[in-house]
């Protein structure tokens, strides 16, 4: 039996604040298989990045995992201690951040940053690491990689830097990549290239990818499956084609409708009334109910609807006809 590369079970992250405990990630479960790209989508504050940070063990205190389990390649990792977790980072889980301009240490040559990462995780010599660094840069499409290893980050353009970041994330050959809004800070013309690069590299290596984004275009283009998050909870989870074309959750539906891509040909964009609740004021029951045109009393009180097999977290999932 093959394990999924990553398996998240009922994961919750809590932050104690003076207004009580807030839960930016609340009972989230999903798997990612080898070579699969899972898109995690949602508005700002929906808990997408927080879940990613929880997986790689970089939650900023006082945020912490309160319940749930995280399994990586059959090993439970949410309870690992500091150093054991550190060994996993980079080696088993790579991460790509949003802004390539700030992700690279401005004072170190990119070659040094690459070799440093490899030497930390791989039993290779320095000269071997230097060789691999050039190869890694070459692989992500940096022209003249042999010379460019000695360059400093500021000598690259934004797109090139994101390629360097990807090379860094992949250089110790992890089995999972968490890409947190990897294209948001880039020019539109470069975005597609980076997505294509990420996709190609992961397909080639069989790396699982958690692609966190709020951009439905990226989702449509790159992912195999998609998880929609709202107010820390999973709203809907399914193959990208199903979710995009037959959204079951009214929120997903609204999200699709408000995206130019999904509303091709329509003259005006749909808008979801209201705003996502603040995390310290998540309403009872279904968190989406104040904005949902279909909400009933059932939605307004506990229990909270959860995603089940092939079923969105909604008491009244939409059927096809309701798509505008």
């Amino acid at each position, binding site marked *: 039996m093959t394990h999924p590369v990553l398996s998240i079970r009922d994961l919750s992250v809590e932050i104690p604040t003076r207004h009580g405990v807030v839960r930016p990630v609340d009972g989230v479960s999903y798997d990612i298989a080898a070579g699969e790209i899972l898109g995690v989508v949602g508005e700002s504050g929906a808990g997408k990045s927080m879940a990613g940070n929880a997986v790689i063990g970089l939650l900023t205190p006082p945020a912490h995992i309160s319940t749930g389990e995280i399994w990586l390649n059959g090993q439970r990792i949410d309870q690992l201690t500091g150093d054991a977790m550190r060994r996993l980072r980079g080696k088993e889980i790579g991460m790509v951040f949003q*802004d390539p301009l700030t992700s690279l240490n401005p004072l170190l040559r990119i070659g040094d940053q690459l070799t440093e990462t490899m030497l930390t995780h791989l039993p290779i010599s320095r000269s071997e690491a230097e060789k691999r660094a050039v190869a890694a840069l070459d692989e992500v499409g940096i022209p003249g990689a042999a010379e460019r290893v000695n360059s400093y980050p500021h000598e690259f353009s934004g797109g090139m830097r994101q390629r360097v970041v990807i090379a860094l994330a992949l250089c110790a050959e992890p089995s999972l990549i968490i890409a947190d809004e990897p294209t948001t800070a880039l020019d539109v013309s470069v975005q597609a290239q980076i997505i294509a690069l990420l996709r190609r590299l992961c397909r080639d290596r069989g790396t699982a990818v958690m692609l966190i984004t709020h951009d439905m275009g990226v989702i449509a283009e790159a992912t195999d499956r998609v998880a929609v998050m709202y107010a820390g909870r999973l709203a809907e989870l399914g193959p990208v084609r199903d979710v995009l074309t037959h959204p079951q959750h009214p929120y997903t539906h609204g999200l699709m409708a408000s995206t130019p891509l999904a509303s091709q040909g329509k003259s005006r964009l749909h808008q979801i009334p209201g705003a996502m609740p603040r995390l310290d004021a998540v309403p009872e029951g279904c968190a989406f109910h104040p904005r949902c045109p279909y909400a009933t009393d059932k939605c307004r009180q506990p229990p909270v609807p959860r995603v089940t097999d092939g079923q969105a977290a909604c008491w009244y999932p939409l059927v096809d006809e309701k798509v505008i």
Partner: protein
Amino acid sequence: MLAYIIRRIGQSALVLLIVGLVAFSMFRFVGDPIDNMLGQERTAEDIDRLRAQLGLDQPFVVQYFKFLEGAVQGNFGVSYRQGRPVAEILLERAPATLELAAVSGILAILFGIALGVFTAIRRDGVLANFIMSASLIGVSLPTFLIGILLIYLFSVELGWLPSFGRGETVDLGGWSTGFLTESGLKALILPSITLGLYQMTLIMRLVRSEMLEVLRQDYIRFARARGLRDRAVNFRHALKNTMVPVITVIGLQLGAIIAFAIITETVFQWPGVGLLFINAIQFVDIPVMAAYLMLISVMFVGINLLVDILYFFIDPRLRADRSGGH
């Protein structure tokens, strides 16, 4: 780079000239040197004669340019008080101040950076918080009082360390050093703590806040996300970036150390240029005051320049900006 340095020196020189002029205009308010040069039984005629001899009857602008004329040729005049060339006196006194400043500076930098890094990494630790609060005591009392209290405790009550002076010094080709004798080293302890404490606190707090700032940066998170060891993250990545702004301040603090040496040297009767300056004020020894201010200014300009050049080596971004020319 060279053009930049030359421009910097040019600007600084202009500023120095202005500072010098302001300083010179101040001298006549410091007091009148004549009374210290003449005894109890002087007459009004003696006073006028001596004043004319010293050129003090001329407008201060004229005095200033005369001073500049000499200074350019390395001649700072003759001390009213000691009747010796000022340059000679300054050279004689400089080693004491420089050694004191060096020891205090090194203490301040070493402990300041170490404690700053520690308190930043252990941000919420009990010990770190205690160090942060305790360090404020050092900057909440005036330096002179700290010095006097140290003397009281370690010299008078405990008798461990000398209460004043430099101890035995050894002359190494014109440079008198206190580093080579036991009494010289002992004599350094209290003054360098007194002088370095304030700067250490400043450096420590600055390093801490800069480090905290850096630790929140994406590239640090990225470095952690790559599984780099804490030591590599904290020192190789974070500390190096922390040092960029810290170096400027350290440079300025080195200057401040030399200036604050005035107080420490007075309290410990440390025979350096600071004490010389205070004595010069007391006796209205204008040539010494002028030369001291010039020396300090030149030193600061030098330190500033050095800091800039150091920047250049630490931060590759600047290298690109500046070598690119304007």
